[in-house]
């Protein structure tokens, strides 16, 4: 088995804006072939980190290496192998999709043929709008053009910062499928940040969660969910009675604050059948008892957003 190369290595990266520590001593590694999810709330430091990876922002401290090369010393060689969409996919509105793609291909150091440009536009579903000026495009079309621009020079690493911003459900699904296609069929490494956790959950092989500029967790998506800390949602015909029963019984320690009218408990995944048996024995008619191990739940558990959501819903 060929060992996977580290594509991005970040060590002790920090950046401060006046008194605000936007990124605080973050380290992480993205390996070849990863679809690496970059998660955090608004203002967590995701975009600042991504901009430092793309040399848009100068770090105050720390090292960044891409493809085993120092970004500070080998910027040009590295950026030739990177394609990026950073937040909004802004391009030249007074140019057509075709002209934009051709222009950015030349800026990336390649001279694609007309056929290659048309193929790239076809890949993102813009073949029939190639000659139209970008100012006539919807947000979704601009986003797709942005992705075509990121891919036009066939980079090994693709960095997508909030690629689903402003997209409708179909657009979001298209981006998800494109990321999967790039990873599985074209063997690209993808770093993707998004606030849509369910979308990341469906594509990411590894992920990092940052909060207030600090790294909270990093690892393979499957390894991050601790079975001993499974959040279980409970819905019964009489939730008030169920709450009283649980609060005064052996499951009191597992109880979590209520959200959306549902009862939550944190327990080992293997204990779920026992809980069910206990409730049935207590005569509480159970409508649903569901272990929640979605990324969203996990994200809320580990970030300070948990407190925010709880206080808001309470």
């Amino acid at each position, binding site marked *: 088995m060929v060992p996977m190369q580290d594509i991005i290595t970040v060590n002790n990266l920090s950046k401060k804006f006046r008194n605000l520590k936007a990124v605080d001593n973050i380290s992480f590694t993205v390996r070849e072939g990863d679809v690496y999810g970059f998660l955090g709330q608004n203002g967590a430091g995701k975009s600042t980190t991504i901009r430092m990876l793309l040399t848009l922002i100068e770090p105050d401290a720390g090292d960044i290496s891409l493809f085993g090369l120092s970004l500070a010393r080998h910027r040009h060689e590295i950026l030739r192998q990177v394609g990026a969409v950073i937040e909004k996919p802004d391009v030249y509105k007074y*140019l057509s999709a075709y002209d934009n793609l051709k222009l950015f291909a030349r800026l990336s150091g390649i001279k694609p043929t007309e056929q290659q440009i048309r193929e790239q536009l076809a890949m993102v579903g813009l073949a029939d709008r190639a000659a139209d000026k970008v100012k006539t495009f919807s947000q979704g079309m601009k986003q797709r053009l942005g992705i075509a621009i990121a891919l036009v020079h066939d980079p090994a690493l693709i960095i997508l910062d909030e690629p689903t911003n402003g997209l409708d459900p179909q657009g979001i699904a298209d981006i998800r499928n494109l990321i999967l296609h790039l990873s599985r069929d074209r063997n690209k490494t993808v770093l993707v940040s998004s606030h849509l956790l369910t979308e990341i959950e469906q594509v990411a092989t590894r992920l990092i969660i940052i909060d207030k500029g600090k790294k909270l967790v990093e690892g393979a998506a499957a390894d991050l969910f601790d079975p001993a800390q499974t959040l279980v949602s409970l819905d019964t015909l009489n939730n008030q009675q169920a709450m009283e029963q649980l609060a005064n019984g052996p499951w009191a320690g597992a109880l979590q604050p209520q959200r959306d009218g549902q009862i939550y408990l944190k327990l080992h995944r293997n204990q779920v059948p026992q809980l069910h048996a206990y409730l049935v024995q207590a005569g509480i008619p159970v409508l649903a008892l569901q272990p929640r191990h979605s990324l969203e739940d996990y994200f809320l558990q580990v970030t300070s957003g948990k407190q925010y959501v709880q206080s808001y819903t309470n």
Partner: protein
Amino acid sequence: MFSLIQIETYKIFRRPRTYIAFAAITSLIVLIQFGLKVDGKSYLDFMLNDLSTTLQIEGNIMNGYLVCYVMLQLLLVHVPLLIALIAADMISGEANMGTLRLLLTKPFSRTQLMLSKFIASTIYTLLLLIWLAFLALFVSMWIFGTDDMFLMKSSYVVLLKENDVFWRYIGAFVFAALAMTTVAALGFLLSVFAENSIGPIVATMSVIIFFTILSTLNIPIFNTVKPYLFTTHMISWKEFFDIQVNDANEAINGSIQNLPKILQSAAILLIHIVVFVWAAIWVFRKKDILS
């Protein structure tokens, strides 16, 4: 680098805004030419009012050379605004559109990008002046014909032989190109600090207006700073039309009265260009792109 310059020039000339300047200059020149063609005699009578009793003037005074001079005096005050429209938008416009961040993820250095952008805006400036020269000089020569050039200065008159004028215009336009490139460099520098186009354009014009007023104010306290203001030197193109005279007070063909002044002004403008562009690159290299 050459490819970057090509791309930046291409971007300038694909923007509709670029052609506003060409359209404005064309319409102004056509309007002045029309006015002088229809009613040039009245204009001349007004100009020569005081001299008509002491001088007898014959020939085609209202010729293409004089018309061009009149237009340059009028237009070279306003052309900086048209230059600023593009040069002061070079970085701020990209930041405003959001394309700057994408541009800076491409494999070239910020210095290369800045130099390319400045060279592209200089190409625009030069093309604008070539267009101005074509309309104001060549078209005027075609419409009004050519003859000796009679110029009225504040305290004297200058008479240039017909065969001694054309090269002076070449010199004047080259000098004007240098002056307008200084304006472009100032706009370019100011564009680094903003993320919208209006601010740097207005700021560029404000600086020019402020310095021009300072340059023309006849108050002794300001005399020490005047030689260092680029606006003082921007009008030195007029020196090409001052001629030396011999002991018999006869004009010496092919001479310039104060060539050192032209060279000094050119040097000062050149220094301003270098300083403005260097400062723009220095600031931009350190700038975090947050737009």
